[in-house]
Protein backbone atom coordinates (compact mmCIF):
# COMPACT_ATOMS: atom_id res chain seq x y z
CA UNK A 1 0.00 0.00 0.00
CA UNK A 2 1.47 3.34 -1.03
CA UNK A 3 1.34 6.51 0.96
CA UNK A 4 0.12 9.40 -1.23
CA UNK A 5 -0.47 12.64 0.63
CA UNK A 6 -3.30 14.99 -0.35
CA UNK A 7 -2.53 17.96 -2.55
CA UNK A 8 -4.10 21.34 -1.73
CA UNK A 9 -6.46 20.75 -4.70
CA UNK A 10 -7.55 17.38 -3.28
CA UNK A 11 -8.29 19.07 0.03
CA UNK A 12 -10.28 21.84 -1.63
CA UNK A 13 -12.47 19.35 -3.51
CA UNK A 14 -13.09 17.25 -0.39
CA UNK A 15 -14.03 20.31 1.66
CA UNK A 16 -16.42 21.42 -1.04
CA UNK A 17 -18.00 17.96 -1.19
CA UNK A 18 -18.83 17.90 2.49
CA UNK A 19 -19.68 21.60 2.60
CA UNK A 20 -17.04 22.68 5.11
CA UNK A 21 -15.22 25.99 4.48
CA UNK A 22 -11.78 25.07 5.88
CA UNK A 23 -9.79 22.35 7.63
CA UNK A 24 -9.93 24.29 10.91
CA UNK A 25 -13.71 23.99 10.83
CA UNK A 26 -13.37 20.22 11.27
CA UNK A 27 -11.99 20.81 14.77
CA UNK A 28 -14.77 23.00 16.19
CA UNK A 29 -15.55 20.35 18.82
CA UNK A 30 -12.26 21.08 20.53
CA UNK A 31 -12.67 24.12 22.83
CA UNK A 32 -10.64 27.11 21.83
CA UNK A 33 -8.72 27.05 25.12
CA UNK A 34 -7.19 23.68 24.17
CA UNK A 35 -6.16 24.52 20.67
CA UNK A 36 -2.51 25.09 19.94
CA UNK A 37 -2.07 28.49 18.27
CA UNK A 38 1.69 28.50 17.85
CA UNK A 39 4.28 25.80 18.00
CA UNK A 40 6.35 25.78 21.20
CA UNK A 41 9.92 27.05 21.03
CA UNK A 42 11.65 24.36 19.00
CA UNK A 43 15.21 24.47 17.69
CA UNK A 44 15.64 25.35 14.04
CA UNK A 45 15.36 22.45 11.57
CA UNK A 46 18.46 20.44 10.74
CA UNK A 47 19.55 19.39 7.29
CA UNK A 48 19.66 15.64 6.67
CA UNK A 49 23.44 15.68 7.18
CA UNK A 50 23.20 17.65 10.44
CA UNK A 51 20.38 15.46 11.64
CA UNK A 52 22.43 12.35 10.92
CA UNK A 53 25.45 13.71 12.78
CA UNK A 54 23.25 14.64 15.73
CA UNK A 55 21.90 11.09 15.99
CA UNK A 56 25.37 9.58 15.63
CA UNK A 57 26.66 11.67 18.52
CA UNK A 58 23.71 10.63 20.66
CA UNK A 59 24.26 6.95 19.93
CA UNK A 60 27.96 7.32 20.77
CA UNK A 61 26.87 7.75 24.37
CA UNK A 62 26.00 4.05 24.40
CA UNK A 63 28.71 1.61 25.25
CA UNK A 64 28.67 -1.91 23.97
CA UNK A 65 30.68 -4.44 25.93
CA UNK A 66 33.16 -6.57 24.02
CA UNK A 67 31.77 -9.64 25.74
CA UNK A 68 29.08 -10.48 28.26
CA UNK A 69 28.81 -12.88 31.17
CA UNK A 70 25.24 -11.92 31.83
CA UNK A 71 22.08 -13.86 31.09
CA UNK A 72 19.24 -13.40 33.56
CA UNK A 73 16.54 -13.52 30.90
CA UNK A 74 18.27 -12.12 27.79
CA UNK A 75 21.09 -13.98 26.04
CA UNK A 76 23.88 -13.18 23.62
CA UNK A 77 23.86 -15.82 20.88
CA UNK A 78 25.17 -15.88 17.35
CA UNK A 79 22.66 -14.87 14.71
CA UNK A 80 23.33 -16.35 11.25
CA UNK A 81 23.44 -13.76 8.46
CA UNK A 82 20.55 -15.42 6.62
CA UNK A 83 18.18 -14.30 9.39
CA UNK A 84 18.70 -10.63 8.58
CA UNK A 85 18.32 -11.26 4.88
CA UNK A 86 14.89 -12.82 5.23
CA UNK A 87 13.60 -10.63 8.04
CA UNK A 88 14.82 -7.49 6.24
CA UNK A 89 12.64 -8.07 3.20
CA UNK A 90 10.23 -5.17 3.09
CA UNK A 91 7.21 -7.48 2.72
CA UNK A 92 8.01 -8.75 6.19
CA UNK A 93 9.84 -5.83 7.73
CA UNK A 94 7.27 -3.12 7.10
CA UNK A 95 4.08 -5.14 7.34
CA UNK A 96 1.75 -4.73 10.29
CA UNK A 97 0.01 -7.81 11.63
CA UNK A 98 -2.42 -8.96 8.93
CA UNK A 99 -6.13 -8.33 9.46
CA UNK A 100 -7.40 -9.66 6.17
CA UNK A 101 -5.12 -12.47 7.04
CA UNK A 102 -5.86 -14.90 4.23
CA UNK A 103 -4.53 -12.45 1.67
CA UNK A 104 -1.11 -12.73 3.33
CA UNK A 105 -0.44 -16.39 2.57
CA UNK A 106 3.31 -15.93 2.90
CA UNK A 107 3.26 -14.65 6.47
CA UNK A 108 0.59 -17.18 7.47
CA UNK A 109 2.74 -19.99 6.13
CA UNK A 110 5.76 -18.62 7.97
CA UNK A 111 3.75 -18.50 11.19
CA UNK A 112 2.51 -22.05 10.60
CA UNK A 113 6.10 -23.26 10.19
CA UNK A 114 7.07 -21.37 13.36
CA UNK A 115 4.23 -22.98 15.31
CA UNK A 116 5.24 -26.42 14.04
CA UNK A 117 8.85 -26.01 15.13
CA UNK A 118 7.88 -24.68 18.54
CA UNK A 119 5.42 -27.54 19.05
CA UNK A 120 8.18 -30.05 18.30
CA UNK A 121 10.76 -28.35 20.49
CA UNK A 122 8.40 -28.07 23.47
CA UNK A 123 6.90 -31.54 23.02
CA UNK A 124 3.37 -30.12 22.80
CA UNK A 125 0.68 -30.66 20.17
CA UNK A 126 -0.20 -26.97 19.81
CA UNK A 127 1.78 -23.74 19.75
CA UNK A 128 0.39 -20.29 19.03
CA UNK A 129 1.71 -17.59 16.72
CA UNK A 130 3.60 -16.02 19.65
CA UNK A 131 3.03 -13.57 22.50
CA UNK A 132 4.86 -10.40 23.48
CA UNK A 133 7.59 -11.95 25.62
CA UNK A 134 8.38 -14.74 28.06
CA UNK A 135 7.02 -12.91 31.08
CA UNK A 136 3.60 -12.09 29.64
CA UNK A 137 3.41 -15.56 28.07
CA UNK A 138 3.78 -17.04 31.54
CA UNK A 139 1.23 -14.61 32.97
CA UNK A 140 -1.26 -15.53 30.23
CA UNK A 141 -0.70 -19.19 31.03
CA UNK A 142 -1.52 -18.51 34.65
CA UNK A 143 -4.74 -16.68 33.73
CA UNK A 144 -5.70 -19.50 31.37
CA UNK A 145 -5.35 -21.96 34.24
CA UNK A 146 -7.41 -19.79 36.58
CA UNK A 147 -10.22 -19.28 34.08
CA UNK A 148 -10.31 -22.87 32.83
CA UNK A 149 -10.39 -24.49 36.27
CA UNK A 150 -12.34 -21.66 37.93
CA UNK A 151 -9.81 -21.61 40.76
CA UNK A 152 -8.01 -18.60 42.19
CA UNK A 153 -4.78 -19.84 43.77
CA UNK A 154 -1.45 -19.78 41.94
CA UNK A 155 1.75 -21.42 43.20
CA UNK A 156 4.92 -20.02 41.67
CA UNK A 157 8.53 -20.94 42.35
CA UNK A 158 10.72 -18.27 43.91
CA UNK A 159 13.32 -19.55 41.50
CA UNK A 160 11.26 -18.20 38.62
CA UNK A 161 12.70 -15.01 37.07
CA UNK A 162 11.87 -12.09 39.44
CA UNK A 163 10.50 -9.93 36.64
CA UNK A 164 8.33 -12.79 35.36
CA UNK A 165 6.92 -13.13 38.87
CA UNK A 166 6.12 -9.40 38.93
CA UNK A 167 4.32 -9.58 35.59
CA UNK A 168 2.40 -12.65 36.76
CA UNK A 169 1.49 -10.74 39.93
CA UNK A 170 0.12 -7.86 37.85
CA UNK A 171 -2.13 -10.17 35.83
CA UNK A 172 -3.19 -12.03 38.99
CA UNK A 173 -4.12 -8.83 40.81
CA UNK A 174 -6.37 -7.86 37.90
CA UNK A 175 -8.08 -11.26 38.03
CA UNK A 176 -8.32 -11.62 41.80
CA UNK A 177 -5.94 -14.55 42.05
CA UNK A 178 -3.77 -15.23 45.13
CA UNK A 179 -0.12 -16.04 44.61
CA UNK A 180 1.93 -18.20 46.95
CA UNK A 181 5.67 -18.43 46.31
CA UNK A 182 7.31 -21.82 46.73
CA UNK A 183 10.89 -21.65 48.03
CA UNK A 184 13.96 -23.31 46.58
CA UNK A 185 16.19 -25.80 48.42
CA UNK A 186 19.93 -25.69 48.97
CA UNK A 187 20.34 -27.61 45.73
CA UNK A 188 18.78 -24.65 43.90
CA UNK A 189 15.74 -26.60 42.82
CA UNK A 190 12.07 -26.03 43.69
CA UNK A 191 11.18 -27.32 47.15
CA UNK A 192 8.76 -30.09 46.15
CA UNK A 193 8.06 -30.95 49.80
CA UNK A 194 6.76 -27.45 50.46
CA UNK A 195 4.91 -27.58 47.14
CA UNK A 196 3.11 -30.76 48.21
CA UNK A 197 2.16 -29.20 51.55
CA UNK A 198 0.97 -25.96 49.97
CA UNK A 199 -1.04 -27.18 47.00
CA UNK A 200 -4.78 -27.64 47.49
CA UNK A 201 -8.05 -27.98 45.54
CA UNK A 202 -8.18 -24.26 44.93
CA UNK A 203 -4.81 -24.25 43.15
CA UNK A 204 -5.19 -23.48 39.47
CA UNK A 205 -1.54 -23.72 38.49
CA UNK A 206 1.94 -24.66 39.58
CA UNK A 207 4.24 -22.30 37.74
CA UNK A 208 7.93 -23.16 37.43
CA UNK A 209 10.84 -22.28 35.20
CA UNK A 210 13.42 -24.73 33.90
CA UNK A 211 16.27 -23.97 33.67
CA UNK A 212 15.28 -21.68 36.53
CA UNK A 213 16.56 -18.17 37.29
CA UNK A 214 19.65 -19.68 38.96
CA UNK A 215 20.36 -21.64 35.77
CA UNK A 216 19.35 -24.90 37.39
CA UNK A 217 17.48 -27.62 35.54
CA UNK A 218 14.37 -28.53 37.54
CA UNK A 219 13.28 -32.16 37.75
CA UNK A 220 9.79 -32.07 36.33
CA UNK A 221 9.37 -35.76 37.11
CA UNK A 222 9.18 -34.75 40.79
CA UNK A 223 6.98 -31.70 40.26
CA UNK A 224 4.40 -33.00 37.75
CA UNK A 225 2.70 -35.59 39.95
CA UNK A 226 2.29 -33.08 42.78
CA UNK A 227 0.69 -30.51 40.48
CA UNK A 228 -1.67 -32.98 38.83
CA UNK A 229 -2.70 -34.68 42.07
CA UNK A 230 -5.10 -31.81 42.78
CA UNK A 231 -5.96 -31.21 39.16
CA UNK A 232 -3.87 -28.06 38.90
CA UNK A 233 -2.16 -27.24 35.63
CA UNK A 234 1.63 -27.45 35.39
CA UNK A 235 3.11 -24.40 33.66
CA UNK A 236 6.76 -24.79 32.65
CA UNK A 237 8.57 -21.62 31.63
CA UNK A 238 12.05 -20.96 30.25
CA UNK A 239 14.18 -17.93 29.48
CA UNK A 240 16.86 -19.25 27.08
CA UNK A 241 15.12 -21.06 24.23
CA UNK A 242 18.35 -22.76 23.08
CA UNK A 243 17.95 -25.07 26.08
CA UNK A 244 15.12 -26.67 24.11
CA UNK A 245 17.79 -28.07 21.82
CA UNK A 246 19.17 -30.30 24.52
CA UNK A 247 16.86 -30.77 27.49
CA UNK A 248 13.94 -33.19 27.53
CA UNK A 249 10.89 -31.13 26.50
CA UNK A 250 8.56 -30.16 29.31
CA UNK A 251 5.64 -31.31 27.19
CA UNK A 252 6.98 -34.87 27.22
CA UNK A 253 7.35 -34.63 31.00
CA UNK A 254 3.69 -33.75 31.49
CA UNK A 255 3.50 -29.95 31.46
CA UNK A 256 0.09 -28.55 30.44
CA UNK A 257 1.54 -25.27 29.23
CA UNK A 258 5.08 -24.61 28.06
CA UNK A 259 5.90 -20.94 27.73
CA UNK A 260 8.99 -18.78 27.64
CA UNK A 261 11.27 -16.34 25.96
CA UNK A 262 12.27 -16.91 22.33
CA UNK A 263 14.79 -14.07 22.05
CA UNK A 264 17.67 -16.58 21.95
CA UNK A 265 16.36 -17.84 18.61
CA UNK A 266 17.75 -15.35 16.12
CA UNK A 267 16.78 -12.11 17.88
CA UNK A 268 19.35 -9.57 19.14
CA UNK A 269 19.37 -8.31 22.72
CA UNK A 270 17.64 -5.14 21.48
CA UNK A 271 18.12 -3.28 24.79
CA UNK A 272 15.37 -5.44 26.29
CA UNK A 273 12.91 -5.76 23.44
CA UNK A 274 11.08 -6.47 21.21
CA UNK A 275 11.23 -10.04 22.39
CA UNK A 276 9.29 -13.19 21.62
CA UNK A 277 6.77 -14.95 23.82
CA UNK A 278 6.59 -18.68 23.13
CA UNK A 279 3.35 -20.41 24.13
CA UNK A 280 2.44 -24.06 23.66
CA UNK A 281 -0.25 -26.19 25.28
CA UNK A 282 -2.05 -29.54 25.31
CA UNK A 283 -4.85 -30.47 22.92
CA UNK A 284 -7.29 -30.26 25.84
CA UNK A 285 -6.53 -26.57 26.25
CA UNK A 286 -6.66 -25.83 22.51
CA UNK A 287 -9.86 -23.81 22.63
CA UNK A 288 -8.66 -21.80 25.60
CA UNK A 289 -5.20 -20.73 24.53
CA UNK A 290 -4.64 -17.05 23.85
CA UNK A 291 -3.17 -15.52 20.74
CA UNK A 292 -3.41 -16.27 17.07
CA UNK A 293 -3.30 -19.70 15.48
CA UNK A 294 -2.26 -20.21 11.88
CA UNK A 295 -3.85 -23.28 10.37
CA UNK A 296 -3.25 -25.26 7.19
CA UNK A 297 -6.20 -26.26 5.00
CA UNK A 298 -7.24 -26.59 1.35
CA UNK A 299 -9.17 -24.12 -0.78
CA UNK A 300 -12.19 -24.95 -2.97
CA UNK A 301 -9.82 -26.24 -5.70
CA UNK A 302 -8.07 -28.55 -3.27
CA UNK A 303 -4.93 -26.42 -3.17
CA UNK A 304 -3.10 -25.96 0.11
CA UNK A 305 -3.67 -22.64 1.88
CA UNK A 306 -3.27 -21.07 5.32
CA UNK A 307 -5.78 -19.31 7.55
CA UNK A 308 -6.03 -17.82 11.01
CA UNK A 309 -8.08 -20.51 12.67
CA UNK A 310 -10.13 -21.04 15.82
CA UNK A 311 -10.64 -17.29 15.93
CA UNK A 312 -13.80 -17.71 17.95
CA UNK A 313 -11.48 -17.98 20.98
CA UNK A 314 -10.24 -14.49 20.48
CA UNK A 315 -11.60 -11.40 22.10
CA UNK A 316 -12.95 -9.78 18.95
CA UNK A 317 -15.49 -12.59 18.85
CA UNK A 318 -15.62 -14.04 22.37
CA UNK A 319 -15.40 -10.58 23.98
CA UNK A 320 -15.23 -10.64 27.77
CA UNK A 321 -15.40 -14.44 27.84
CA UNK A 322 -12.13 -14.78 25.94
CA UNK A 323 -9.15 -16.01 27.90
CA UNK A 324 -7.10 -13.04 26.80
CA UNK A 325 -7.44 -9.77 24.90
CA UNK A 326 -4.26 -10.24 22.91
CA UNK A 327 -4.99 -9.83 19.20
CA UNK A 328 -1.52 -9.69 17.76
CA UNK A 329 1.79 -11.53 17.84
CA UNK A 330 5.51 -10.80 17.46
CA UNK A 331 5.47 -11.73 13.79
CA UNK A 332 8.87 -10.34 12.83
CA UNK A 333 10.62 -11.80 15.89
CA UNK A 334 8.89 -15.11 15.30
CA UNK A 335 10.07 -15.02 11.70
CA UNK A 336 13.63 -14.38 12.86
CA UNK A 337 13.30 -17.34 15.23
CA UNK A 338 11.98 -19.54 12.43
CA UNK A 339 14.82 -18.65 10.07
CA UNK A 340 17.29 -19.25 12.90
CA UNK A 341 15.83 -22.68 13.62
CA UNK A 342 15.61 -23.66 9.95
CA UNK A 343 19.19 -22.62 9.28
CA UNK A 344 20.50 -24.55 12.28
CA UNK A 345 18.27 -27.57 11.97
CA UNK A 346 19.51 -30.40 14.16
CA UNK A 347 22.64 -28.38 14.92
CA UNK A 348 20.59 -26.55 17.53
CA UNK A 349 21.65 -29.39 19.77
CA UNK A 350 25.31 -28.64 19.10
CA UNK A 351 24.74 -24.99 20.00
CA UNK A 352 23.11 -26.09 23.25
CA UNK A 353 26.01 -28.45 23.99
CA UNK A 354 28.50 -25.64 23.39
CA UNK A 355 26.58 -23.53 25.89
CA UNK A 356 26.81 -26.29 28.49
CA UNK A 357 30.55 -26.79 27.95
CA UNK A 358 31.39 -23.08 27.99
CA UNK A 359 29.39 -22.54 31.15
CA UNK A 360 31.03 -25.51 32.83
CA UNK A 361 34.49 -24.18 31.93
CA UNK A 362 33.70 -20.67 33.19
CA UNK A 363 32.20 -22.11 36.36
CA UNK A 364 35.20 -24.32 37.09
CA UNK A 365 37.72 -21.56 36.44
CA UNK A 366 35.95 -18.90 38.49
CA UNK A 367 35.03 -21.18 41.39
CA UNK A 368 38.68 -22.18 41.71
CA UNK A 369 39.59 -18.58 42.56
CA UNK A 370 40.24 -17.78 46.22
CA UNK A 371 37.04 -16.95 48.05
CA UNK A 372 34.74 -18.03 45.22
CA UNK A 373 32.25 -20.86 45.77
CA UNK A 374 29.58 -22.70 43.87
CA UNK A 375 26.25 -21.78 45.47
CA UNK A 376 24.04 -24.63 44.26
CA UNK A 377 24.61 -28.31 43.63
CA UNK A 378 21.97 -29.22 41.03
CA UNK A 379 22.89 -29.47 37.32
CA UNK A 380 22.77 -26.34 35.15
CA UNK A 381 22.43 -25.40 31.47
CA UNK A 382 24.34 -22.22 30.53
CA UNK A 383 23.90 -20.16 33.71
CA UNK A 384 25.07 -20.75 37.26
CA UNK A 385 25.43 -18.97 40.59
CA UNK A 386 28.74 -18.36 42.36
CA UNK A 387 29.36 -16.51 45.58
CA UNK A 388 32.42 -14.30 45.96
CA UNK A 389 33.71 -11.89 48.62
CA UNK A 390 33.04 -8.67 46.70
CA UNK A 391 30.70 -9.04 43.74
CA UNK A 392 30.54 -5.26 43.10
CA UNK A 393 34.33 -5.04 42.85
CA UNK A 394 34.50 -7.91 40.38
CA UNK A 395 31.73 -6.43 38.23
CA UNK A 396 33.47 -3.05 38.32
CA UNK A 397 36.74 -4.63 37.20
CA UNK A 398 34.94 -6.41 34.40
CA UNK A 399 33.17 -3.23 33.35
CA UNK A 400 36.54 -1.43 33.20
CA UNK A 401 37.68 -4.10 30.78
CA UNK A 402 34.58 -3.75 28.60
CA UNK A 403 33.00 -6.91 29.93
CA UNK A 404 29.36 -7.00 31.04
CA UNK A 405 29.62 -8.91 34.29
CA UNK A 406 27.34 -11.13 36.32
CA UNK A 407 23.86 -10.35 37.60
CA UNK A 408 24.05 -9.58 41.33
CA UNK A 409 21.30 -11.60 43.03
CA UNK A 410 21.18 -9.49 46.20
CA UNK A 411 18.45 -7.08 45.15
CA UNK A 412 16.01 -9.85 44.18
CA UNK A 413 17.13 -12.40 46.76
CA UNK A 414 18.28 -10.52 49.90
CA UNK A 415 19.52 -13.79 51.39
CA UNK A 416 22.01 -14.06 48.52
CA UNK A 417 23.98 -10.83 48.83
CA UNK A 418 27.30 -12.27 47.72
CA UNK A 419 25.97 -14.19 44.76
CA UNK A 420 26.47 -13.53 41.07
CA UNK A 421 24.44 -15.15 38.33
CA UNK A 422 26.78 -15.81 35.40
CA UNK A 423 26.18 -17.03 31.89
CA UNK A 424 28.36 -18.43 29.13
CA UNK A 425 27.02 -18.97 25.64
CA UNK A 426 28.65 -20.17 22.41
CA UNK A 427 29.79 -16.53 21.94
CA UNK A 428 32.60 -16.94 24.48
CA UNK A 429 35.85 -18.49 23.31
CA UNK A 430 38.21 -20.23 25.72
CA UNK A 431 40.47 -17.17 25.47
CA UNK A 432 37.55 -14.87 26.35
CA UNK A 433 36.78 -16.94 29.43
CA UNK A 434 40.44 -17.11 30.53
CA UNK A 435 40.67 -13.35 30.10
CA UNK A 436 37.54 -12.72 32.18
CA UNK A 437 38.82 -15.06 34.90
CA UNK A 438 42.17 -13.27 35.04
CA UNK A 439 40.42 -9.95 35.58
CA UNK A 440 38.24 -11.44 38.30
CA UNK A 441 41.32 -12.91 40.02
CA UNK A 442 43.00 -9.52 40.05
CA UNK A 443 39.94 -7.56 41.18
CA UNK A 444 40.50 -6.21 44.69
Amino acid at each position, binding site marked *: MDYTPHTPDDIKIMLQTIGVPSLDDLFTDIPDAYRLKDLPDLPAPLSEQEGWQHMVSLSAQNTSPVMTLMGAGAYHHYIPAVVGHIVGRSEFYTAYTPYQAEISQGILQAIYEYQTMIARLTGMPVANASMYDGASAMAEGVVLAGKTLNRDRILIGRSVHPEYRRVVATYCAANGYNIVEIPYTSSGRLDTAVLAQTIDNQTAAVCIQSPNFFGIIEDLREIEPVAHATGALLIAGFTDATALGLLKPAGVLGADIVCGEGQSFGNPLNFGGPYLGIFAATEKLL*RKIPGRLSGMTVDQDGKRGFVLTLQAREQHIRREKATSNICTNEALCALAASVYLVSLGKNLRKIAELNVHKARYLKEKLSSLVGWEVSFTAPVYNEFVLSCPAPEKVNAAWREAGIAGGYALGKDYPERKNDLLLCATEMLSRMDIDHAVTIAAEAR
Partner: protein
Amino acid sequence: MGKPNPDDRRYTKEHEWALDNGDGTVTMGITDYAQHLLTDIVYVELPDIGKKVKQMEPVTVIESVKSVSDIFSPVSGEVVAVNETLQDKPELINEDAFGEGWIVRIAMADPAELNLLMDAATYTSLTEAVKDAGH
Protein backbone atom coordinates in the same frame (compact mmCIF):
# COMPACT_ATOMS: atom_id res chain seq x y z
CA MET B 1 -38.93 -22.07 6.52
CA GLY B 2 -37.73 -23.60 9.77
CA LYS B 3 -39.06 -26.61 11.66
CA PRO B 4 -42.10 -26.02 13.89
CA ASN B 5 -41.56 -25.83 17.64
CA PRO B 6 -42.88 -29.09 19.20
CA ASP B 7 -45.72 -28.76 21.70
CA ASP B 8 -44.33 -31.36 24.07
CA ARG B 9 -41.70 -29.09 25.57
CA ARG B 10 -40.99 -25.71 27.19
CA TYR B 11 -38.84 -22.86 25.85
CA THR B 12 -36.55 -20.13 27.16
CA LYS B 13 -36.17 -16.67 25.69
CA GLU B 14 -32.55 -17.59 24.93
CA HIS B 15 -33.85 -20.24 22.51
CA GLU B 16 -33.27 -23.37 24.56
CA TRP B 17 -35.91 -26.11 24.86
CA ALA B 18 -36.55 -28.42 27.82
CA LEU B 19 -38.38 -31.75 27.47
CA ASP B 20 -39.71 -33.27 30.69
CA ASN B 21 -38.74 -36.98 30.60
CA GLY B 22 -41.24 -37.85 33.33
CA ASP B 23 -38.58 -39.28 35.63
CA GLY B 24 -37.38 -36.12 37.32
CA THR B 25 -35.04 -35.24 34.48
CA VAL B 26 -35.31 -32.96 31.45
CA THR B 27 -33.50 -33.21 28.15
CA MET B 28 -32.42 -29.87 26.73
CA GLY B 29 -31.14 -28.47 23.47
CA ILE B 30 -31.42 -25.37 21.33
CA THR B 31 -34.30 -24.67 18.97
CA ASP B 32 -34.24 -25.00 15.22
CA TYR B 33 -34.60 -21.20 15.08
CA ALA B 34 -31.40 -20.84 17.14
CA GLN B 35 -29.36 -23.26 15.05
CA HIS B 36 -30.41 -21.37 11.96
CA LEU B 37 -29.10 -18.11 13.43
CA LEU B 38 -25.84 -19.66 14.56
CA THR B 39 -25.15 -21.21 11.12
CA ASP B 40 -22.72 -24.15 10.85
CA ILE B 41 -21.87 -25.48 14.30
CA VAL B 42 -18.30 -26.73 14.56
CA TYR B 43 -17.83 -27.50 18.24
CA VAL B 44 -19.84 -28.12 21.39
CA GLU B 45 -18.12 -27.80 24.75
CA LEU B 46 -20.01 -30.38 26.80
CA PRO B 47 -20.13 -30.01 30.59
CA ASP B 48 -18.92 -32.63 33.05
CA ILE B 49 -21.44 -35.11 34.42
CA GLY B 50 -22.35 -34.00 37.92
CA LYS B 51 -22.02 -30.31 37.16
CA LYS B 52 -24.53 -28.30 39.13
CA VAL B 53 -26.44 -25.64 37.23
CA LYS B 54 -28.90 -22.86 37.98
CA GLN B 55 -31.78 -21.86 35.77
CA MET B 56 -30.62 -19.51 32.99
CA GLU B 57 -26.94 -19.90 33.85
CA PRO B 58 -24.55 -21.13 31.12
CA VAL B 59 -24.32 -24.92 30.97
CA THR B 60 -22.50 -25.35 27.69
CA VAL B 61 -20.83 -23.40 24.91
CA ILE B 62 -21.56 -23.80 21.20
CA GLU B 63 -19.06 -22.63 18.64
CA SER B 64 -20.20 -21.94 15.08
CA VAL B 65 -18.21 -20.59 12.18
CA LYS B 66 -19.19 -17.08 13.12
CA SER B 67 -19.53 -17.02 16.89
CA VAL B 68 -19.11 -18.68 20.25
CA SER B 69 -22.31 -18.68 22.28
CA ASP B 70 -23.17 -19.56 25.85
CA ILE B 71 -26.14 -21.91 26.07
CA PHE B 72 -28.24 -21.48 29.21
CA SER B 73 -29.73 -24.22 31.34
CA PRO B 74 -33.54 -24.06 31.30
CA VAL B 75 -33.71 -25.50 34.83
CA SER B 76 -31.66 -25.75 38.02
CA GLY B 77 -30.22 -29.13 38.89
CA GLU B 78 -27.40 -31.52 38.07
CA VAL B 79 -26.08 -32.74 34.71
CA VAL B 80 -26.69 -36.50 34.49
CA ALA B 81 -25.95 -37.15 30.82
CA VAL B 82 -24.41 -35.42 27.81
CA ASN B 83 -24.81 -36.19 24.12
CA GLU B 84 -21.33 -37.56 23.41
CA THR B 85 -22.10 -37.92 19.68
CA LEU B 86 -21.85 -34.15 19.42
CA GLN B 87 -18.07 -34.40 20.00
CA ASP B 88 -17.61 -35.87 16.53
CA LYS B 89 -20.79 -34.61 14.90
CA PRO B 90 -21.62 -31.15 16.21
CA GLU B 91 -23.61 -30.60 13.01
CA LEU B 92 -26.38 -32.82 14.43
CA ILE B 93 -27.63 -29.70 16.16
CA ASN B 94 -28.05 -28.00 12.78
CA GLU B 95 -29.66 -31.08 11.22
CA ASP B 96 -31.99 -32.12 14.02
CA ALA B 97 -32.04 -29.57 16.81
CA PHE B 98 -35.11 -31.03 18.51
CA GLY B 99 -34.07 -34.71 18.20
CA GLU B 100 -30.58 -36.14 17.64
CA GLY B 101 -29.12 -32.73 18.45
CA TRP B 102 -30.10 -32.85 22.14
CA ILE B 103 -27.27 -31.60 24.30
CA VAL B 104 -27.62 -32.32 27.99
CA ARG B 105 -29.89 -34.19 30.40
CA ILE B 106 -30.46 -32.56 33.78
CA ALA B 107 -31.97 -33.91 37.02
CA MET B 108 -34.25 -31.11 38.15
CA ALA B 109 -33.85 -29.49 41.54
CA ASP B 110 -37.32 -27.93 41.28
CA PRO B 111 -39.75 -29.11 38.56
CA ALA B 112 -41.92 -26.02 39.17
CA GLU B 113 -39.26 -24.01 37.33
CA LEU B 114 -40.63 -25.41 34.06
CA ASN B 115 -43.73 -23.28 34.59
CA LEU B 116 -41.57 -20.17 34.32
CA LEU B 117 -40.70 -21.11 30.74
CA MET B 118 -42.77 -20.51 27.59
CA ASP B 119 -44.93 -22.98 25.77
CA ALA B 120 -44.45 -23.64 22.04
CA ALA B 121 -47.05 -21.12 20.91
CA THR B 122 -45.62 -18.29 23.02
CA TYR B 123 -42.08 -19.05 21.88
CA THR B 124 -43.14 -19.21 18.24
CA SER B 125 -44.81 -15.79 18.41
CA LEU B 126 -41.69 -14.41 20.12
CA THR B 127 -39.49 -15.48 17.23
CA GLU B 128 -41.96 -14.21 14.68
CA ALA B 129 -42.11 -10.82 16.36
CA VAL B 130 -38.34 -10.61 16.13
CA LYS B 131 -38.50 -11.50 12.43
CA ASP B 132 -41.13 -8.85 11.81
CA ALA B 133 -38.94 -6.32 13.55
CA GLY B 134 -36.42 -6.97 10.81
CA HIS B 135 -33.72 -8.84 12.72
